[in-house]
C-alpha cells in the first residue's frame, strides 16, 4: 500500500529505544515545556521544604504579632529583625511563609485528589470496558451524569452538606473527578481491545486479566497521564476558589484562596499585596502544570482532548 505523501520515517533505530524514552526525548525538545517542568519541580521542592526554610509558621497563632498586620513589602519585623519580603496580611502573617504553606495545601489537595481519582476512575473504566453489558451501560450513564454537571456546583452542594475542611474538599474533588478518568480509560481500553495484538495474545492462551494488565493497560496510560496533568491544574484552581468562597480550608490555616479572599477587603485602602502575591504564586503553579500538560498531550497522543 502506498504510504502517506511523506515517506516512511526512519525505522532503523540503533539501540533499544523504549517508547517511554522516545516520549522523554520528544518532551525535552520543547524549551517552554522544560521551563514549565523546572518551575514545577522548584515549587514542589519549596513547598515540601517549607517548614525548614520559612521564617515563621503562619498557622501557629502564637508566632503572629497583630502589630505587624498589613505591613508593606520589604518592611522589617518588630523584634527579631527579619524582613517581610512580601509584606504581611491582616493577622500579621508573613506573606512569604503563608504562600509557601498555602502551596503545600494546594499541591497536596490537587495532586492527591487527582491521583486517587485516577486510580479509582481507571479501575472502573477498565472493569466497565472488560465486563461490558448492563454494568458498562450503568457505569457510563453515571459517568455521563457526573460529567454533565459543572464541578464547582456539585462541589458547592456537597460541601454545603458535608461542611468545610480540606478533607471534605479532597473528598468532593475525588467524588467528581474519577468520572473523567473512567470515561477515558474505558474508551481507550475498548479501542485497544479491538486491535489485533489483543487477539494475538488471546490466541496464545494468555489469561484475560494478564492481557488487561500486561497488554492493554500500558497502552491506556498516555491519555490518562494527559488528563491527570489537566485535572491537577483544575483541582488546584477549584480548591482555591472554594477556599476563596469560604467553603474550603478553615480560617486558621488559610490556603492561597483564603489569603486572597482576606486581602480583598484591604484592597480599597490600596494594600494590594495581600491579594496580589498569593494570586501570582497560584498562577505560576497552574501555568507550569498546564505547560507540562500541554506538551505531554502533544507528545503522547496528539489527537486527544483540546
Amino acid at each position: 500500500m502506498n504510504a502517506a505523501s511523506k515517506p516512511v520515517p526512519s525505522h532503523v533505530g540503533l539501540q533499544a529505544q523504549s517508547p517511554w524514552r522516545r516520549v522523554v526525548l520528544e518532551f525535552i525538545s520543547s524549551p517552554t515545556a522544560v521551563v514549565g517542568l523546572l518551575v514545577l519541580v522548584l515549587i514542589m521542592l519549596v513547598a515540601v521544604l517549607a517548614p525548614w526554610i520559612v521564617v515563621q509558621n503562619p498557622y501557629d497563632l502564637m508566632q503572629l504579632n497583630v502589630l505587624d498586620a498589613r505591613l508593606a513589602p520589604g518592611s522589617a519585623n518588630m523584634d527579631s529583625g527579619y524582613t517581610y519580603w512580601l509584606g504581611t496580611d491582616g493577622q500579621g502573617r508573613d506573606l512569604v511563609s503563608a504562600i509557601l504553606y498555602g502551596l503545600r495545601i494546594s499541591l497536596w489537595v490537587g495532586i492527591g485528589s487527582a491521583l486517587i481519582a485516577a486510580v479509582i476512575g481507571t479501575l472502573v473504566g477498565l472493569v466497565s470496558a472488560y465486563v461490558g453489558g448492563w454494568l458498562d451501560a450503568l457505569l457510563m450513564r453515571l459517568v455521563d451524569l457526573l460529567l454533565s454537571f459543572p464541578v464547582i456546583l456539585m462541589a458547592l452542594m456537597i460541601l454545603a452538606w458535608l461542611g468545610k475542611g480540606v478533607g471534605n474538599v479532597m473528598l468532593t474533588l475525588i467524588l467528581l473527578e474519577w468520572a473523567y478518568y473512567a470515561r477515558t480509560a474505558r474508551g481507550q481500553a475498548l479501542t485497544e481491545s479491538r486491535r489485533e495484538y489483543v487477539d494475538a495474545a488471546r490466541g496464545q492462551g494468555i489469561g484475560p486479566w494478564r492481557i488487561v494488565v500486561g497488554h492493554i493497560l500500558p497502552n491506556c496510560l498516555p491519555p490518562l497521564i494527559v488528563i491527570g496533568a489537566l485535572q491537577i491544574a483544575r483541582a488546584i484552581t477549584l480548591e482555591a476558589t472554594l477556599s476563596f468562597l469560604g467553603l474550603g480550608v478553615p480560617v486558621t490555616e488559610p490556603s492561597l484562596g483564603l489569603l486572597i479572599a482576606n486581602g480583598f477587603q484591604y484592597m480599597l485602602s490600596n494594600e494590594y499585596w495581600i491579594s496580589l502575591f498569593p494570586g501570582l504564586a497560584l498562577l505560576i503553579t497552574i501555568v507550569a502544570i498546564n505547560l507540562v500538560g500541554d506538551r505531554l498531550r502533544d507528545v503522547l497522543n496528539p489527537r486527544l482532548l483540546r
Partner: protein
Amino acid sequence: MSLPERNAAAMSTQAPTQTPTLEVRNLCTSFYTRAGVLPAVRDVSLRVAPGRILGLVGESGSGKSVTGFSILGLVDAPGRISGGQVLFKGRDLTQLSAAGLRELQGNRIAMIFQDPMMTLNPVLRVDTQMIEAVRAHRTVSKREARAHAGRTLALMGIPSPEERLRAYPHQLSGGMRQRVAIAIALLHAPDLIIADEPTTALDVTIQAQILSEVQKLVREQGTSLIWITHDLSVVAGLADDVAVMYAGRIVEQGSVADVLDRPQHPYTQGLIDSLPSRNKRGQRLRQIPGMAPDLLSMPTGCAFAARCSRATSVCAQEPPEREIAPGQTVRCFHPGAADAQ
C-alpha cells in the same frame, strides 16, 4: 451548457510528436522537516500526450504521490518544490501565481485521490460538493450547475443520479464514492487527470468497473491521464506508457510493451520477478533482497545499488538518464534485459 466536444484529432492514436499536454522537466520536491531534508522527488522528467495514459509505478516512499501533488501545486508545508519546471500546454505551472494556478485546478487539470472514505467532505451533500466545483470555474446558476452535475454522474454509469445527488457521502459505498469523485474531476472536461491510486482501496469487481469507465472516457474525450499505482498488473492493462520510480527518481520510462516485456533496469526486472503470476506455481519467488533506503540518509550514487545484483564500483556515482531505445530511457550503468526466464 453541454460538455465541450473534443476534436477527433486528439484521439490516442496520435503519435506523441504532437506538443504534449504535460511535460515535467527535472522536478525536485523536498520536505524540510525538523529531522532533516527529505528529498521526496529528485530530478523527475516525464511527458504525457493528449489522450494517452501514463502509468507512474513505485513502492511506498518512492515519491510517486508527491510527484502528482507537485504537478498540481498541492504540496503543503513543510514540503516545497525546490527545482525544475512543470509545463502544462507550454505554460510553466511553478511560475504561476496561486490565483493563476487555481484557474487550472479542477478546470483544465483534475485530481482523483486514493481513499474513497475521505475524499468527499462527510458533512456536505454530494450535490453541494459538485455544484461548488462547477461554479468555481463557470458563472452559472445553481440549478444549471446541479443539472450538469447530474449529467456527469450519468456519464459515469451511476444509476439514479438524482438520488445520489441528495445523499451524504457516508450513505454511498466505497466504489460509488470513488465514481462521484471521478465525476467531479470530469465536470470541466479537463485536459489532464492525475489519479493517485484511485482503485487500491476497492474490491476487484468494483475496480474493474472504475477502470472500464475511466478508460472509455479517456479514449472518447482525448484527456491525458497519469495513473499513480503500486500495482504493475493494473498499469499493464490500462496504460500506454509507464514510468518506474524508486527512492524519488524515475529509474526507467517508456511504452508499456518496451518496459514491461524488455525491462532494462534491474529494479524493474526485480519488481516483475516478484509478481507471483511471473513465477512457476509453488516455487520460491525471485525476490529483491533488503529494503528501500531511508530518505533521511540517502546513499550517494544509485539508490538501488545496495540491493542490486549488477552493482559495481561505478554505481557509486549518480547514473544519468539515458535513452537506451527509441522512447525508452533508463537510469543505470548496466542496463540490459536479464536472460528472460
